């Protein structure tokens, strides 16, 4: 199978170039940021009817931002960043003052934030035009974007299949040539998993290294914004733009950003000599799609041939990760989403002058939230209740500690861990939507990393022989060693060519 949206139908070659190439062309004034931005806007207009990657396109705002970059460059100013002038798609969970921020929920339909998220502000300051806001599962809860209140995103590789979730819109936009760069958020795999299904690159940075201020919370202790693109280097360039300490986020870590761009450039020589790569036993076993395992084993062999030493590592508590994750996440969700009550902003339902505030809150929440969001609010409310807290929430926190210890032990033996990003390739839209547990299982390989707060990447590793669809390779690095992902990722990417 091929992705016809990137190979064919891209008459305007600006939409197939990498962000690094586009930045080079813009900064040398061979093309303008307006031309590049316009090309992507045209591309969105042409294909988004098929893909539905975007919930909102900000044509005028994007072109204004592009013009501003062009004006500065023409005046001889240095580019505001390595990516100045290259446009980007922003997941609709980061607040923006010039476009609605909905988190793909009816609850926030048309909601205009009076402030920009820190990530949004950094993107603007870097001179990156924002093309629009991308589709996602409602409040980032889901694995297929089918929980979006505005309809699912379609995978450019096969329109009948999911582009993953929750960040399916961002990854599909990259895969369809609608944007060279996109921002996602990863709570249990929402950046890495869609990247795997769309043959793109996605990174979940170490928890605390990218500000969550203005990121509408799903689960605060797990959420992390991160970069996505079609190449490892592009992803690193975007990573450098959005990372860094932020005084508006108390969980933001005050330490220098890992040298991710340098690592991506160094890795491009394809050399993995001296690198100890751990294959996680728990994520390499029966039950996974044969084509996925086959591609994964081929990836491991490729790394061995590039000089890496391959070691099998045992992380026994990863088997308990899913259960712990689906307790901690709903608990935080039940509290984080309490503010959506129709009192101050967003949807207000049932306020006909006869109902009490309590009743209006209940009506609003009944109408504004979709089924998956309600399911998790109810689960979390129950799990935090008196008499259940110890058995559920506290127990899950203990499992979380054990998982972090498994990782720590593994990194005593190896430099980096690898696994398939997902147990299967992209499934069909509608296939799992009626079975929440099936859907939850799809994030099996990605969520231990969030529970431990570490750094992870998914990058293309070929197509599955059985389905012909993309398979993602997941890399997992210790906390604050995000550069190691790029070092190994760039080498692996170079080795595939």
């Amino acid at each position: 199978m091929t992705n016809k949206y990137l190979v064919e139908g891209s008459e305007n070659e600006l939409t197939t170039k990498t962000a690094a190439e586009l930045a080079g062309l813009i900064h040398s004034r061979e093309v303008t940021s307006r031309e590049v931005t316009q090309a992507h806007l045209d591309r969105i207009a042409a294909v988004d009817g098929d893909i539905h990657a975007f919930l909102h396109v900000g044509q005028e705002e994007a072109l204004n931002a592009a013009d501003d970059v062009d004006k500065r460059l023409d005046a001889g100013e240095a580019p505001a960043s390595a990516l100045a002038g290259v446009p980007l798609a922003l997941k609709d969970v980061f607040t923006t003052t010039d476009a609605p921020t909905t988190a793909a929920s009816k609850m926030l339909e048309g909601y205009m934030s009076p402030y920009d998220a820190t990530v949004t502000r950094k993107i603007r300051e870097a001179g990156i035009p924002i093309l629009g806001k991308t589709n996602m599962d409602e409040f980032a809860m889901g694995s297929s974007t089918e929980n979006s209140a505005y309809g699912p995103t379609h995978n450019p590789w096969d329109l009948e299949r999911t582009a993953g979730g929750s960040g399916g819109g961002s990854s599909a936009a990259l895969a369809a040539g609608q944007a060279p760069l996109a921002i996602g958020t990863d709570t249990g795999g929402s950046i890495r998993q869609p990247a795997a299904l769309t043959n793109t690159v996605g990174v979940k940075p170490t928890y605390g290294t990218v500000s969550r201020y203005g990121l509408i919370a799903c689960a605060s202790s797990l959420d992390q914004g991160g970069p996505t693109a079609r190449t490892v280097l592009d992803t690193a360039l975007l990573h450098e733009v959005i990372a860094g300490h932020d005084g508006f986020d108390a969980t933001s870590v005050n330490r220098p950003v890992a040298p991710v761009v340098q690592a991506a450039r160094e890795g491009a020589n394809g050399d993995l000599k001296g690198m100890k790569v751990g294959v996680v036993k728990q994520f390499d076993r029966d039950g996974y799609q044969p084509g996925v395992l086959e591609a994964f084993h081929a990836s491991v062999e490729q790394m061995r041939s590039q000089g890496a030493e391959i070691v099998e590592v045992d992380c026994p508590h990863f088997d308990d990760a899913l259960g712990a994750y689906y307790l901690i996440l709903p608990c935080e969700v039940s509290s984080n989403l309490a503010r959506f009550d129709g009192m101050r902003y967003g949807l207000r339902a049932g306020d006909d002058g006869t109902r009490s505030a309590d009743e209006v809150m209940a009506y609003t929440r009944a109408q504004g939230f979709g089924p998956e969001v309600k399911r998790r609010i109810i689960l979390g409310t129950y799990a935090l209740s008196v008499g259940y807290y110890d058995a559920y929430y506290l127990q899950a926190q203990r499992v979380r500690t054990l998982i972090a210890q498994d990782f720590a032990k593994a990194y005593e033996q190896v430099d980096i861990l690898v696994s398939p990003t997902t147990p299967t390739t992209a499934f069909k839209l509608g296939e799992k939507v009626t079975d929440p547990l099936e859907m939850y299982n799809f994030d099996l390989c990605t969520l231990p990393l969030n529970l431990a707060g570490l750094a992870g990447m998914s990058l293309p590793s070929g197509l599955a022989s059985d389905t012909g669809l993309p398979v993602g390779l997941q890399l997992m690095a210790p906390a604050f060693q995000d550069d190691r992902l790029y070092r190994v990722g760039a080498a692996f990417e170079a080795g595939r060519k």
Partner: protein
Amino acid sequence: MTAAFYDLMDFDEVLEKYDPVMGLEVHVELGTETKMFSASSAHFGAEPNSNVDPVSLGLPGALPVVNAKGVEWAIKIGLALNCSIAESSRFARKNYFYPDQPKNYQISQYDEPIAYDGYLDVVLEDGTEWRVEIERAHMEEDTGKLTHLGGTSGRIHGATASLVDCNRAGIPLIEVVTKPIEGAGARAPEIAKAYVSALRDLVKALGVSDGRLDQGSMRVDANLSLRPIGQEEFGTRTETKNINSLKSVEQAITFEMQRQAQVLDDGGVIDQETRHYQEADGSTSKGRPKETAEDYRYFNDPDLPPVIAPREWVEEIRATLPELPWVRRARIQEEWKLSDAEMRDLINANALDLIIETVEAGTTPDEARAWWVSYISQKANESGVELDALGVAPAHVARVVALVSEGKLTNKLARQAIDGVIAGEGDVDAVVAARGLEVVRDDGAIEKAVDEALAANPDIVEKYRAGNTKVTGAIVGAVMKATRGKADPAQVNQLIAKKLA
């Protein structure tokens, strides 16, 4: 609802049969510049919803960041209350839906408070000390404020709409919780009042709060239960809210003791409930009954890392503690050579700080004491407000004392000047000018009035000349009348003596 609605047991009878157990929870609003978790201004009295930001409005994506000053002041309070200060404490979320709560959870401290296990020694009216044990002092944020429209007197009952003001949402609060106060017997109401009073003096001395019960910057919840004399186990408690003055603290406890005793005596049971103090008649009334038991689903706030208080920092803060009220009192009593009774009068009138400030503004302790304890206290009583809420500042008193000693005001005129200050007519000099209070120094005018008075009273002149110099009162009175009280009596007497010499 009135007190007469309840059957109340005679207080002495209550004490014969029951032993009260009391617990006090006091919320102290800190006077920080900004809110507990954002940079929004924390000042009182701004236009509704003007001191707000994404954090205090609970907007999508907003995150809390701890106000270091709030933590520092919480530690100050903890240290002054002889508490242990936790090296690491945590913020938790208290989850409940209410329209004045923008996030529908309150950030508070739950099982890991910043200060715990302390005590406060309070002085009772007869001079004895009582040690109130402190369970904990923890940090939290205030809620917004609701105004209900269309009902009676702003209550939610019968209202057709409610307005939400989020200016107060996120203002730092310290909640100070006592351990159960046992064995107080008849003194329970007095101890409650003395404790709240001491805590108020403390936070004011620390400069962390204005401690105004009437404006809600200090809020008292009084828990009370009774148990039959001799019983170990606590009875069922009620929690009384809406207590707005020191006097009300005492009254609310007294009322609950009498009410609960009667209920128990009649074979009834006490419901564990929230009650509201009624300022009008000193009773407490049933709050809205709760249909279900509250379950706040506390859990650690994942947005906020633990609050770390390194020992060196705590010691630095300890070193900045000002002279604490009880130490200051002992020193003042010694310096001013006051008897225990005199000292108690000052404290009970809540006048000590005002007097000290007045002395600092230039009067003698006796002058300051005379003004505050007698005339100004009397005025405060008449208006039914606290002494420091009357509108008279120490500087005002110092000014009238100065004017009297300069001979520009008589004591009587000085009291009128203070009346003017209370009436909001401006400072002392403005009142004196506007009301024309200044003593007439124009010798010509006074001399003329003296001449006229002497001429009108020949019989007195005769008696005086015959050697009876004590008869000048009527002449002085006539002169004062003619000058409308603005002549200085001493000067008038001198003139009479001169004229009749």
